[in-house]
């Protein structure tokens, strides 16, 4: 197997200084690995730290201990826990994508620009980026008259399609999906599953977390039920 990511003994604690310095540890001593082209679904009840694992990998959270080995195209095998911030930023731009539950955008920015943002960040020229963006919008079933409108005006399903597509468009090698199918209608769910399958076929490793197996369960290669730390 072509291991892309290897999480070893990951622990994440939060010290809440505003609540008498209390410490909580939602992730304790977690280990797993993912291979290129593989889709791992982590499920478990809400509020149990599944998302914390994803955020530790993406370094939105600073892991308390453990290692997160990633085989980078640019930097070789590196520990994301120890990596320099600039390396993390480079990886986010080119190799690791994260899709949150909600689309957070600036008002007035068009759907096309929101979708193309990861490509602009890679300094792709505007015309090329927008050509790619338009292909995606078509595939996502967003009506062309909406392309220049702000996604804020979109329906929930349409917003979520844009949100997820934004994570896919930069073709990362590792994609972290946080509850991607929560609150999706059936049609959109099928669109998302198709996106995941296409990315996998290109060799992208996917880790998704969900509280509900019915959504992505059928398309995951492996499922792992997350046991919350005591």
């Amino acid at each position, binding site marked *: 197997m072509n291991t892309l990511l290897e999480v070893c003994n990951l622990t994440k604690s*939060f*010290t*809440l*200084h*505003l609540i008498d310095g209390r410490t909580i540890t939602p992730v304790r001593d977690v280990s797993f690995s993912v291979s290129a082209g593989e889709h791992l679904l982590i499920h478990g009840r809400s509020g149990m730290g599944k998302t914390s694992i994803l*955020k530790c990998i*993406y*370094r*939105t*959270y*600073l892991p308390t201990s453990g290692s997160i080995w990633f085989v980078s195209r640019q*930097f070789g095998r*590196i520990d994301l826990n120890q*990596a*320099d*911030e*600039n*390396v*993390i*930023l*480079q990886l986010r731009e080119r190799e690791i994508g994260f899709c949150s539950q909600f689309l957070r955008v*600036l*008002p*007035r*920015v068009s759907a096309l620009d929101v979708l193309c943002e990861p490509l*602009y*960040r890679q*300094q792709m020229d*505007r015309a090329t980026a927008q050509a790619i963006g338009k292909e995606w919008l078509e595939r996502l079933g967003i009506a062309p008259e909406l392309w220049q409108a702000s996604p804020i005006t979109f329906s929930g399903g349409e917003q979520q399609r844009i949100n997820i597509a934004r994570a896919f468009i930069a073709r990362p090698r590792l994609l972290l999906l946080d509850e991607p199918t929560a609150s999706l209608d059936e049609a959109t769910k099928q669109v998302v599953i198709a996106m995941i399958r296409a990315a996998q076929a290109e060799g992208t490793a996917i880790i998704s977390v969900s509280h509900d197996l019915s959504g992505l369960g059928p398309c995951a290669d492996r499922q792992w039920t997350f046991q919350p730390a005591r």
Partner: protein
Amino acid sequence: MTLENWLLRVERLHKHFGPTCPDCHRLTGPDNGRSRCPRCGTVWACVDVNIQLEAGEVLGIVGESGSGKSTLLQMIYLALRPDSGHIWYRDEGEPARDLVSLNRYEARVFRNSRIGIVYQRPELGLNMRFSIGGNVAEKLLLAEWRHFGRIRARTTELMVKTELPPERIDDEPATFSGGMLQRVQIAKALASRPGLLLLDEITSGLDVSVQARVLDLLRRIQWEDRITMLLVSHDLGVVRQLARRTIVMKNGHIVEAGLTDQILEDPQHPYTQLLVSSAL
């Protein structure tokens, strides 16, 4: 592994205002919750500040008023001399220079060609008696542009880039709205194609929708021109939209530095936790 591609590196920068006394350091700083020494009245605006800006990145500086962030910005703009420390600047393919060692004239020449600044209040950055075009042209004139037609052409180009109506090139700033004046300031700051853009609370005092448009413009400029920016704001929302890395200042000290999403979602320092919890 690190990437050696920095543009600006601030090392052990200090700035205080006042006579100082032996108890200053014991009585000030974030742990004491004050930057003014209660014994001698000295204000410690920046204490041992170290930051590094990578070429092309946007770095956010957050903190409440009096945290020292504006003093830091003024020192980097070479408008205020630090007591000690270094401000290294490195043009691509050239050796680093310590900007602190420049004399006033050299500092001004450097500032004109390499640094653009946008202030919260447009009247600080613009001359309200000059036309819009004259304000934008000032940077070009300082850079020894001496062809009126070419100055007009470049000014028009900058107005289009910053979404200003070019036909209003000869109008007075007084006839422009707040959001437009911020864009005039941005056009002026960009005129000399600076390596570094300093943004000082630029969207405070603007309506939310106007604010969004200014932020969107800055993001586009950052993507298209790969311009390095230092963004000072007390508004975490603004920092989240623009900056990939953020430092948090309190009472003249940097209390936390990290990736912006990490600072906002997993703040480590008690003060940052307070800041984030009161903002969200």
